[in-house]
């Protein structure tokens, strides 16, 4: 699968749930390439913005869409990566902030 195919596939599933791809298409495609790279090297599509262990069990919470996407989009209008955003983020009716890491530190190592 290439990034364009992944884009189409995810868009179809995620947009009806209220998770939109960032309108910054260049960023989105870089992140989708990152997801494909992670699938290739780890066997699972872990978050491109976080260091994965490669161990499926340990990385479970950061397999995209990660478990932090829902609270992050609710609170900030964007996931940690700025891959998935709310409509308001894309319409620029809310400020574009840096989304802080929500993943508990003990899960990192």
């Amino acid at each position: 699968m290439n990034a364009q195919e992944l884009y189409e596939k995810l868009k179809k599933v995620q947009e009806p749930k209220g998770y939109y791809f960032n309108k910054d298409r260049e960023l989105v495609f870089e992140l989708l390439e990152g997801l494909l790279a992670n699938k290739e090297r780890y066997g699972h599509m872990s978050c491109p913005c976080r260091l994965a262990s490669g161990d499926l069990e340990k990385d479970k919470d950061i397999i995209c869409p990660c478990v932090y996407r829902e609270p992050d989009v609710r609170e900030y209008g964007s996931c940690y990566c700025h891959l998935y955003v709310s409509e308001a983020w894309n319409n620029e009716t809310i400020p574009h902030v840096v989304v802080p890491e929500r993943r508990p530190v003990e899960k990192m190592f």
Partner: protein
Amino acid sequence: MTDEQDVTVYALSTCGHCKKAKELLNECNVSYDSVEVDLLDSEERQAVLEDVKALNPRCSFPTIRIGEKVIVGYREDEIKEALGIS
């Protein structure tokens, strides 16, 4: 701008924020060391992670060291301020 500042970017090869941070440093003509932590072998990775942890206990990326200052994430204003070019 203080040219002598030692700048290191701890990054992931797949991360958009890391790329943006490096682009900003490039635009500002800042020379820096860049470590793509996800591309290191496990032994090297562990050693580098200890360095990152010392700067940023959450070990998130990018972690940017500019002289004595540490900036976590792509925070354009803070990066420029640390570089003395805000």
